[in-house]
């Protein structure tokens, strides 16, 4: 349980809106460097709208949980399970895409590298978390 005096930064109502805008600015920068500023401004607009949704999300538990203020230990459990499910889906898609690429006579990139990163990250996480528990 967290106390009111030790609330982490990610439980602030400003956290997810600020992070959304930050990501939008990164996208704008990347598109700008890629000489496609219009796409960058569209991406920034989408991310600002997303941030506004979190900030003005009202009493929706889902938005409050995703946005930060509604995060408590139950939400942390939901977050872990949702992350694991999403990760499993991504890994399955990467493996499937890799197999399709290889079967098509190509070298399987970039899916082989993505799968390797995912697998390595999982093993490192298991080792670190086991050592800390």
């Amino acid at each position, binding site marked *: 349980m*967290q106390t*009111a005096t030790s609330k982490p930064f990610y439980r602030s109502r400003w956290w997810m809106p600020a992070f959304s805008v930050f990501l939008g600015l990164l996208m704008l920068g990347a598109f700008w460097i890629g000489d496609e500023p219009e796409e960058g401004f569209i991406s920034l607009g989408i991310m600002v709208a997303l941030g506004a949704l979190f900030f003005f999300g009202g009493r929706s*538990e889902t938005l409050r949980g995703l946005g930060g203020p509604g995060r*408590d230990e*139950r*939400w942390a459990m939901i977050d872990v399970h949702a992350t694991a499910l999403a990760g499993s889906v991504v890994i399955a898609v990467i493996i499937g895409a890799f197999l399709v690429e290889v079967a098509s006579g190509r070298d399987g990139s970039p899916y082989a590298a993505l799968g390797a990163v995912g697998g390595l990250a999982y093993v490192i996480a298991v080792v670190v978390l086991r050592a800390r528990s």
Partner: protein
Amino acid sequence: MKNEVRDLRTAMGLSQQQLGEAMDVSRQTINSIETERYTPSLPLAIALAQYFGRTVEEVFHANGNE
């Protein structure tokens, strides 16, 4: 996990929102505990028991016994 949270809360005249604020969790989390859809962590179970002036065993029933 079966528990006495709803009975103890209502006996104190508290809303789920008020208890949630006291425990620094959401109203929905209190509701989920009361309806046995969520088993609280040990720190939260202890905090709830202390808040109600009971032992953890008096508030939560691990094997469903009253």
